[in-house]
């Protein structure tokens, strides 16, 4: 069974919880992100998610592996939805199981932080007056990887 996934279908959180269930675990945390009616004073009718799928999958897999090692959790499953996600529907779900609750909370929180920084998924906010893609100004991870065009004179002549 896939431990990380991207899907166009509604996310089944019960399935996610069953994926991380284990007799070794005493603590289980499920986080879900859901579409809000309102963001920064703007009404949202729905969100639309797009992804660069191969990189998004490999980043989710990397984060999954890191979380297991870093927090010594028992199991972990992550699903991000793509396409149209209406108000109240789940866009992302992270489930973790751990021996004790401290690691369960810490790992789920860390995973959400990294997902929002590292995984190439974008949302478009749509309401009756229009739509726009969301590209946060303070995108922590990408800052390290971005660059300016800095052609040297030699290049211009070549």
């Amino acid at each position, binding site marked *: 069974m896939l431990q990380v996934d991207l899907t166009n279908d509604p996310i089944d959180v019960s399935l996610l919880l069953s994926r991380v269930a284990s007799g070794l675990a005493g603590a289980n945390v499920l986080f879900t992100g859901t579409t809000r009616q309102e963001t920064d004073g703007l009404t949202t009718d729905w969100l639309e998610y797009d992804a660069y799928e191969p990189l998004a999958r490999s980043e989710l897999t990397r984060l999954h592996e890191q979380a297991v090692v870093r927090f010594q959790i028992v199991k972990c499953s992550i699903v991000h939805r793509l396409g149209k996600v209406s108000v109240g529907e789940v866009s992302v779900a992270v489930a973790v199981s751990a021996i004790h609750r401290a690691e369960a909370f810490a790992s789920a929180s860390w995973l959400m932080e990294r997902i*929002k920084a590292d995984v*190439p998924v974008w949302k478009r906010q749509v309401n009756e007056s229009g739509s726009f893609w969301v590209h946060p100004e303070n995108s922590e991870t990408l800052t390290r990887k971005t660059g300016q065009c800095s*052609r040297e004179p030699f290049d211009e002549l070549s």
Partner: protein
Amino acid sequence: MVTSDDCLKSGSTSGEVSVKLFAGVAELAGVKELRVSVNRFTVAEVRCALGTHLPQVAMLLSRSAIAVDGRYATEDEVLCSDSEIAVIPPVSGG
């Protein structure tokens, strides 16, 4: 078949590469994929070529990362002519 030797050679010669665009970058460019001419097969050169061809994306491009063959790439990374190149604007998943 492209070997690493071909890649090193292509690094010193001009040509074309395909670039995938997403989200706000694709919206501003009006296309989801395009071919651009480069003087060198490096990530930095692709960034410059895109900024020249699509001035409307220059600002968002400067806040974007570049991925090559499904990995985040550094600016000096050398490309093959058939590398999968993607512009990754600031992400907003979750």
